[in-house]
Structure formats: C-alpha cells, structure tokens
C-alpha cells in the first residue's frame, strides 16, 4: 500500500511517498473487532503464514503459529502481517528511489525506530479501517513493537503477546549488533552504503553478520547436540539440522560430501578450509542470507533494536514508562534464550505488575535458545492457543 503523506520520524527526519507490503489472512468481522497485527523481527517479512501458490518452501515465517486451526486461528481472527519500513521484502527501503533526490536511498535512508514502525503500522490500520486491534503480537524485535504499540496507541490495543523480547538491549546485545554492522560497513563492497551504484553487494560482511547472529540465536547445548565436534567430512551428506535459523529453514543437505573422508575423524590440518560441521553450517547460513538480505537493511534494523528503550524518557523507570499501557498482556520467554533472556521478560512483567495490569507470563523450558520462539513446542503453542481462545470469549461478550 502506498502512502503519500509525510511520516515524521523519531530522529526528526521524515519520509514520504513510501510503500508498505502487507498480507492479511482470515476475515475481518463486521464490527472489525477481530484484527491481530503480527510484527516481525530482524529478517522476516509480512509473509507470516501460508504458502504462495506453486512455490515450494514458501511457508510464512510463523506458519506453525498462524493459520486455519493453528494457535492463532485465521478461521476466527483477521491477521495482518506487515513488512517494516527500511526492510527488504517489498516495503520502502534503502534499495528504493529517494523521491527527494531521484537516486537510490542507500545509506541516506533515514534511521527508523521501533516507534516509527509502529506509527507506520498504525497508518496501515487506518487505511484498512481498523481502529482497535484484538491483539498485537511479535517475538524478539517484533515483541518490542508489540510492547511499543501498547504505549503509543494504548486505546487501540486490547491484548499484546510479547514473546522472547526485552524492554531494551543490554550492552552485550548491542555489542553483537555492532560486530555485525562493522563486518558489513568494512566490507570493501559496501561503498559507504551506496553499493547499488557500483553494481556490487557487500556479501562478505552480510555473511559474517549472519554467522554471528546465528550463534546468538542458538543455545550452547543445542549447538553441541546438533554439531558437537563433528567434522564436516565425517558427516553423512543427509545430515539436517532442525534447530534451523529464525525462518525455520533447514541447513544444507547438498555439498557436505565434497571431499570423501579417508577415515572418520581425520583432521585436514588446514586453517582456512571448513573442518568442523558447525563451520559448514554457519557458512551456509551466511551464504544464503547474503543472497537475499540487504546490507543497509541489516544496519537499520539492528540500530532500531539498539535504540528501543521505552524507559529512557522516564529516567530509566520501566514501571513509569508502562503506566501508559492499558492492554492485557501475555509474555513468554525461553529458559535457554541468552540473547533475550527470561530475566528481561520478567522486567516487563514486573513493570506491568507495578501498574496492576492484567498479565500472564510463561517461562518455557525449551533447549533451543532464542530460536525457540519460532519452533514447535506444545507448551508454548498451547499457551498461545489458550490465550487467543480467551480473547475470542471476550470478543463474544
């Protein structure tokens, strides 16, 4: 959907003539009360559920959660997925033409924040004629947007489902983002963000950014279980890794038998070739990511993560910041998630308790680290299902 009106941004800059890609699932009730907005994290899109006709492996990134008969049941709810500004899946981003200059934005794309995204999403809802959301839901950075919705538009949100998220990033978390950004920015093909003009892509930087991201999305235990110290050459070429990256993809089944092992466990004694299976996995994930993801988008989205901090305007007091929220909340965290640890979710829970808000909180003992929020865990999915059942009962009254 195209938006001509200027959108003022938190930085003081503004953007005009922008487009937002979105998808909807299910049917909007006559009284428009059953809409649920899904907010995406770093590398996902508006395609949250279902498959595109004739396209294999085109499942939406939250297809296990959303769809007919799924925990968020699209037979009952009207679900909206939207791609955020600055992303690279259809909405206006750094790879598009800047109407002010007639040139590709590149590094000149304005820095956007979680709050800016929420404002843009609100305009999309306005255009769709939706005043109030039955729920807003997201995981990780998507959870931050869901939380921000309850602060920016409290009167428009009945429920917020915030999964594997945090009230802001810790120094360690910003540090990981910065390493990823430096990998991209220092790639000779980055050209200060204007690589489009040079017909190149800073793939090396993107690969490394993705590799470090992947490490932080998994838990030590799961990584050891999946890969351990296995050598690439010793593995069956059919090895697959269901831990998977955030979009639920699986690791390569091709190419792992390039070099037949002379004997199981023989080292190559090479410093640069792939020796361990985990290296192969990370390189594959990096390669795949560099093929489809935009380098400037990576910088923008990690910065949006860094900047998010609703307590900042309240002297760091999250309870004061969340006093504005009037919606009901479900928060979920995962015990082995060290990137968005349970204690960060508990901070949000405490702030909501301080404000006497309706809140439920589950700490799911899943082994998969941050990735768990995209995976099948019957406790997690069952809880979300029950929560949405409750929302339906409320709507019926």
């Amino acid at each position: 959907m195209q938006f001509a009106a200027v959108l003022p941004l938190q930085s003081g800059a503004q953007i005009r003539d922008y487009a937002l890609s979105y998808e909807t699932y299910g049917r909007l009730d006559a009284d428009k009360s059953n809409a649920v907005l899904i907010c995406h994290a770093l590398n996902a899109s508006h395609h949250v559920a279902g498959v595109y006709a004739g396209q294999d492996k085109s499942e939406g990134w939250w297809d296990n959660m959303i769809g007919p008969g799924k925990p968020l049941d699209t037979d009952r709810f009207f679900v909206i997925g939207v791609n955020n500004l600055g992303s690279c899946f259809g909405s206006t981003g750094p790879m598009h033409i800047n109407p002010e200059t007639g040139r590709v934005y590149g590094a000149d794309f304005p820095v956007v924040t979680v709050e800016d995204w929420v404002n843009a999403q609100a305009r999309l809802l306005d255009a769709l004629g939706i005043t109030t959301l039955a729920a807003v839901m997201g995981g990780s950075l998507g959870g931050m947007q869901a939380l921000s919705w309850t602060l920016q538009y409290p009167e428009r949100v009945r429920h917020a489902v915030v999964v594997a998220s945090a009230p802001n990033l810790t120094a360690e978390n910003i540090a990981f983002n910065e390493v990823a950004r430096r990998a991209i920015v220092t790639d000779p093909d980055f050209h200060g963000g204007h690589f489009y003009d040079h017909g190149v892509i800073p793939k090396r930087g993107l690969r490394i950014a993705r590799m470090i991201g992947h490490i932080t999305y998994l838990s030590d235990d799961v990584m050891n279980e999946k890969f351990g110290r296995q050598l690439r050459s010793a593995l069956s070429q059919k090895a697959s890794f269901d831990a998977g990256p955030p979009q639920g993809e699986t690791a390569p089944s091709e190419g792992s038998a390039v070099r037949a092992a002379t004997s199981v466990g023989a080292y190559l004694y090479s410093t640069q070739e792939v020796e361990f299976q985990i290296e192969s996995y990370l390189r594959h994930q990096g390669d795949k990511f560099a093929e489809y993801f935009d380098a400037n988008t990576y910088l923008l989205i990690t910065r949006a993560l860094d900047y998010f901090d609703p307590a900042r305007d309240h002297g760091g007091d999250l309870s004061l910041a969340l006093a504005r929220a009037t919606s009901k909340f479900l928060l979920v965290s995962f015990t082995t998630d060290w990137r968005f640890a349970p204690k960060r979710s508990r901070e949000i829970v405490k702030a909501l308790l301080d404000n006497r808000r309706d809140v439920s909180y589950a700490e799911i003992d899943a082994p998969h680290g941050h990735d768990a929020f995209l995976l099948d865990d019957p406790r997690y999915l069952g809880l979300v299902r029950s929560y949405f059942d409750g929302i339906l009962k409320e709507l019926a009254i």
Partner: protein
Amino acid sequence: MSDAATMETIARLVPPGSRVLDLGCGDGAMLAYLKEARRCSGYGIEIDDANVLACAQRGVNVIQLNLDEGLSLFDDATFDVVLQIDTLQHLRNAEVMLRETVRVGRIGVVAFPNFAHWPNRLSVLRGRMPVTRRLPYQWYDTPNIRVGTHADLALLAQRSNLRVHDSFGIQDGKTIRFAPNLRAGTSVYTLSR
C-alpha cells in the same frame, strides 16, 4: 483439597473485591472462583507447565515462577490477600515464604495438611508414615518436603513475629474450631505483619 466446600471455606476469608496473589495457584480454580463469586482480581504464581496452561484456559492471570526464588517481582503490601493454599509443604524456604506472604499482602491466608490429624498420629503410632486421602503419597515419592502440624505453624508465626488473626481446621469441608490439631486434616491460618 480441591473439593468445593473446602474452597468456599477458604474463599470466605478473602474480602469481596480483594486484589489477590495466589502462590502455587495450581490450575487456577481458586482464583477463577474468587473472580466469579467475590469480584476479586489478581494473579496466580505457578511453576508447573500444565498448571500454567490450565490457568490460561480459565482466563486467570498466571505468572510462571519458582517460589523458591522468592517474590522479588512484588512490592510490599501490593495485595489485599496473599493465598498460600497447599503450597507451604512444597517449599524449601517455607519460613522465608511465610514472611514474604505477609510482606506482599496485607493478609496472608495459609492452608496446608495437618500432620497431627488423628489418623496420621495412629499411623505413626503403628510405626508407619500415613497414606491418606489428604496425604496420598508414599513417604519415598511425596512432593511434600515439609510435614508440619496446626500447632507447629502457631509457633513458627510467633517466631517470625507474625500476627495470627484467625486459625482453624477444615475436615470434610467443615470448619473445625475445637481441637483442630487433632480433628482436622487441613490447617488454616490468616496472618499479617
């Protein structure tokens, strides 16, 4: 201890409209009842996944938390009533949690199995740990890591400088005020700081 009469007896200790924190809320039945019958609001604390799900299904606010980690999520006197129904006997830090109960709540309501109930005494006299409807577990697989009596809690309350507002027993859904330490399977106290 989920029978309706017992639940109603304990619920009567909760003033209508109270803000309630239910420590170890199980499947949320008590909170749902208090919400429905006495217009109460509040939260349950539960560690068990299945119980957390059951609470969500009932539409009861539930916070998944290990009570042995304390109640640091909650500020002083932020609840009218804090319930500890059949929870005390599972806690490693039972004494700390008793103090926490009356720190967070203006009133604490504690109910737990009374080990001095006469069938239990008989069993021990015969040289065997009791296995009853109220204490249905064998000694080697019981989740009850604390066994105490109605009389014991009075002493612990005194030691912890807690005020006892009321105490009685419940047996077969009925309130027992005469010799509860002998005659009741369940001991109930209302306490405050």
